[in-house]
């Protein structure tokens, strides 16, 4: 346990490297909601010390604001002032707030009710995602059946009020740390996959350099007599190349190498871009070859765009085998059209593509019912 704790501490020690290497990965847009949220949750979890609510609420508020900032600016898109955005932020904010309340409330009945509101919020999000049947089903089953059953059980077993179990937490420190580190990793992962701003800016920069009439002398290394070690690049050239490399890291995909190397695979493309960048550095900037600069920048821009398109899903892999079950359309270009007659469409998909699964789910439900009756059915014979 201690070992993993120290390991997690190490992750924070290495932040400098991480920050220096891949630009704006684990920066304050991620850290603020994560840290503030972690503090809030930790503060509000039940413990033996008396903690006034106000500080927890304050930290929670900061976390929420940070989250909103992350969602707004973290992925590079402009959030339009639409109803969809408002509904999204409303529902998700409600969900997050009441989820926090659920896990930190001492009274289990209040927890159950908070959970009900979380379910309602999540169902609102489902509705935004064009899943009305799921919304209704979730509300009916969760908020209707499951939570009511929970309340019954609480009623049967805790009619005396709060027990000592409700007033304590098991290892809140390590649990909060582990959970929020996981959250940080997930959010950083999301950011890496979906945040193209620096890639876009690198591509634009390369394109601009490719189309320039005259190369900006600030990129070019001063000439020497040609003896000795290679001279260092100018700061601007250095920064440009660093941006390009970061962008390449962002977009390269570990795709399987195909048997036939003559086709243009990802790997080859990445290799070519790297060669181009090296050529840019050596021939272009160091030896003042303007033609090399222009050609390489053009090729780099084109290559990066193609890789980004592959990642986006706007281009298709020419050699990735498709599955036979249903179509897997590339994700990019915004949300797709889903059938309005959602219920019948879900039904059709369910009973044609997932027939075995639904039969098994039915069997599972039957077995669970019998099991529940068998387990809890004995009265008065238990010792």
């Amino acid at each position, binding site marked *: 346990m201690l070992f993993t704790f120290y390991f997690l501490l190490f992750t924070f020690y290495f932040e400098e490297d991480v920050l220096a290497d891949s630009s704006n990965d684990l920066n304050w847009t991620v850290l603020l909601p994560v840290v503030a949220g972690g503090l809030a949750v930790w503060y509000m979890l039940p413990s033996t010390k008396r903690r006034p609510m106000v500080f927890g609420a304050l930290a929670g508020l900061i976390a929420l604001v940070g989250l909103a900032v992350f969602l707004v600016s973290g992925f590079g898109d402009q959030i339009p002032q639409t109803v969809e955005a408002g509904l999204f932020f409303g529902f998700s904010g409600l969900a997050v707030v009441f989820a926090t309340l659920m896990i930190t409330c001492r009274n289990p009945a209040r927890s159950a009710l908070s959970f009900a509101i979380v379910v309602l919020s999540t169902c609102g999000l489902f509705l935004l995602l064009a899943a009305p049947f799921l919304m209704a089903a979730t509300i009916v089953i969760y908020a209707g059946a499951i939570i009511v059953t929970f309340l019954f059980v609480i009623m049967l077993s805790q009619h005396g009020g709060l027990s000592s179990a409700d007033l304590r937490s098991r290892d809140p420190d390590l649990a909060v740390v582990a959970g929020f580190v996981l959250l940080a990793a997930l959010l950083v992962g999301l950011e890496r996959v979906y945040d193209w701003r620096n890639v876009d800016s690198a591509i634009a920069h390369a394109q601009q350099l490719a189309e320039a009439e005259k190369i900006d002398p600030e990129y070019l290394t001063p000439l020497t007599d040609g003896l000795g070690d290679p001279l260092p690049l100018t700061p601007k050239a250095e920064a440009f190349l660093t941006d390009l490399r970061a962008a390449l890291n962002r977009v390269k995909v570990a795709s399987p190498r195909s048997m036939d190397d003559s086709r243009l695979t990802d790997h080859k493309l990445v290799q070519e871009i790297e060669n181009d960048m090296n050529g840019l550095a050596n021939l272009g900037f160091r030896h003042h070859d303007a033609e090399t600069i222009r050609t390489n920048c053009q090729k780099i821009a084109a290559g990066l765009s193609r890789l980004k398109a592959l990642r986006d899903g706007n281009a298709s892999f020419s050699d990735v085998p498709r599955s036979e079950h249903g179509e897997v359309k590339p994700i990019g270009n915004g949300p797709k059209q889903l059938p309005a007659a959602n219920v019948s469409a*879900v039904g059709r998909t369910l009973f044609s593509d997932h027939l075995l699964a639904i039969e098994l789910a039915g069997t599972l439900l039957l077995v669970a019912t019998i099991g529940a009756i068998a387990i809890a059915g004995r009265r008065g014979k238990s010792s």
Partner: protein
Amino acid sequence: MISLPHYLAIGAILFVLGLIGFLTRRNLIVMFLSAELMLQGVALNFVAFSRAHGNLHGQVFALFIIAVAACEAGIALAMFLMLYRKKRSLDISLWQALREPGLEETRDTVPLPVEPKEEPLPVLSVSGVEPARKERDYA
């Protein structure tokens, strides 16, 4: 616009909050509610991907999640009732019998803060003559 990663972020947050609740709270009911919260986060993920891909497989899987969650809830609550019968409490820390033999039980060492005892309400003496009352009026 609101696209896939936003929903995924919310799904991740719900999942992590549920995870922390599961690991921290000692009441069986709240633990289980946290597990359900985790499932909600996952279901949100699935539905978001379904929207992003343009097919309904994600929604179908979210339906399965609901089915399994229902089964799980049934059995779990039956077991909670049984456990409650054994120890008259819903504290999960009471069930430590599967620890290493020879290891001591983990007990709560820090005492809870003592609630200040409320002053009982003052009892006033009876004023005047007491009216005649029959026993069964006190039912």
